[in-house]
């Protein structure tokens, strides 16, 4: 069996990311465990975006909305659990919880519902209009969070004690890394399956030629909507993880900076490539950490790197290393 170059690169990336926190611990630098966890979580968020952007060609400038909704799901449920007050949803009351499995389910559900609502409207447009409408919706969620004093408003919301997973002590950083890493791998598996499936074929064809897809009797809108919902769900899950990593949620998770960073991550790593979002997230966190330590203006250099990718390495890091994508 021959292994493609891209597969070899992907396996290397997977091993490097996995090894990073262990090496960090050996070197007595536990902070790097947090950095690796951050890479895994941002990578997961970007895998979600990559489904819409890479496979579907949907340039969503509003994925922070899903990221933040996942974060707030974690924060709100945890705060209710901590205060021992049920969460009153009008029709029924939900007990708070510190169980991550429940938090993740709620985050994924909320992300999916929000993506359905936003997608229903924004997917009727395309191009720049789509970018602007998704941005507008995300900004609405941002201002909503700011003006909602019950959950911290502008100041955000702390998670006093990190939520828990049965049988795993998530307070130990390396354990929490492994939880995030496992979810990242699961999302990548789902992405890979979807990409190779009938649905994935319809989605990718809709990106390449909408009229062709419609002319054979497949409605591009429906295909895109479903993709957008799955995409929002994955990104919302990462938001919940992110909140638990920082033990803090704030409206900044919902802001357009966040949406922009997710796009940058996908573009840096390689749009539509399976491991592109992970490569991009690793690069991004390294940039943020190394350059951020050297200069206040690290984002300027990030911009330069992005420009270089867009001009010289169309397929991002993965494309640069592995060559052009093939469809079979």
């Amino acid at each position: 069996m021959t292994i493609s170059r891209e597969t070899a690169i992907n396996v290397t990336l997977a091993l490097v990311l996995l090894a990073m926190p262990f090496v960090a611990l050996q070197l007595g630098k536990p902070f790097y465990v947090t950095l690796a966890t951050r890479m895994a979580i941002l990578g997961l968020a970007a895998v979600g975006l990559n489904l819409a952007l890479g496979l579907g060609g949907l340039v969503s400038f509003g994925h922070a909305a899903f990221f933040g909704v996942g974060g707030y799901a974690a924060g709100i449920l945890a705060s209710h659990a901590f205060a021992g007050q049920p969460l009153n949803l009008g029709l029924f009351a939900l007990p708070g919880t510190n169980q991550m499995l429940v938090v993740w389910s709620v985050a994924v559900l909320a992300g999916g519902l929000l993506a359905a609502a936003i997608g229903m409207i924004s997917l009727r447009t395309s191009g720049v209009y789509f970018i602007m409408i998704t941005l507008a919706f995300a900004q609405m969620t941002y201002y909503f969070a700011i003006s909602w004093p019950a959950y911290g408003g502008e100041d955000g919301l702390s998670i006093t004690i990190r939520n828990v997973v049965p049988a795993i002590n998530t307070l130990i950083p390396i354990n929490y890394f492994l939880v995030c890493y496992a979810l990242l791998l699961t999302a990548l598996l789902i992405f890979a399956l979807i990409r190779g499936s009938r649905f994935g074929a319809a989605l990718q064809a809709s990106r390449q030629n909408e009229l062709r897809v419609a002319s054979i009797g497949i409605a591009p809108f429906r295909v895109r909507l479903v993709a957008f919902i799955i995409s929002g769900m994955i990104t919302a899950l990462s938001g919940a993880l992110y909140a638990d990593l920082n033990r803090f949620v704030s409206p900044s998770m919902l802001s357009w900076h966040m949406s922009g960073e997710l796009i940058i991550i996908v573009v840096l790593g390689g749009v539509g490539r399976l491991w592109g979002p992970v490569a991009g997230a690793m690069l991004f966190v390294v940039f943020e950490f190394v350059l951020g330590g050297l200069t206040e203006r690290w984002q300027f250099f990030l911009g330069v790197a992005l420009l270089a990718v867009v001009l010289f390495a169309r397929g991002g890091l993965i494309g640069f290393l592995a060559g052009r994508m093939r469809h079979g």
Partner: protein
Amino acid sequence: MADAVLAVRNLCKSFSALKATENVSLDLKPGEIHALIGPNGAGKSTLIHQIAGTLAPDSGDIDFLGRPVGHLGVVERARMGLGRSFQVSSLAPEFSALRNVMLAVQSRQGSSFRFFRPVMRDASLIEPAMASLERVGLATRARVPAAELSHGERRQLEIAIALALGSQAFLLDEPMAGMGPEGSRSLTGFLDRLREEAPILLVEHDMDAVFALADRVSVLVYGRIIASGTVDQVRADPEVRRAYLGDPA
């Protein structure tokens, strides 16, 4: 008219001052090739677009398989079995010829919302798709990305897609364009047999092909049908000769 597969009645379409379709009526009967000819800019493609649903007419009716379809979109009409090829080929350029046809097969099976089974190992998609490619003579090019196919091959691929859909009628907009004489000849032979499967509305500038194939010919000039009939009737029509067939008189 009752048994027509496709019937267009009193169709009108203007682009601001330009009347691209002016009170056009025509029909397509089972087993026939109905050729639509006319000079450049006559409105042939515009008419095809309205039948397929990519353009909305200003007025008039379109019936397909005995049902009015004017209110239906492109997707619904395609699902009913209206297969088309475009004058400027319209394919998924990154996908191989095979994958382009497989997409049509999956649409016909009504199964685009399956998320896990890999298509490239799915014989129920690959086999019918290969069969369609073979019929149009493109089997050896199955793995080539659509973007890398020649103009003529892209035309053939569009027809393979329409075949794979199990179309009840074909709308072919200049399928011979970009093909060499050899390709035109073999496509002519192919279309001749294809009409048994489903009738064809054929827009074509290649008069040899039209005269060899058409059961009926309609001539469109400035959005109006100026003549309609058998090949011999239309060739003999003085107005047609003046307007289109380049009669010096």
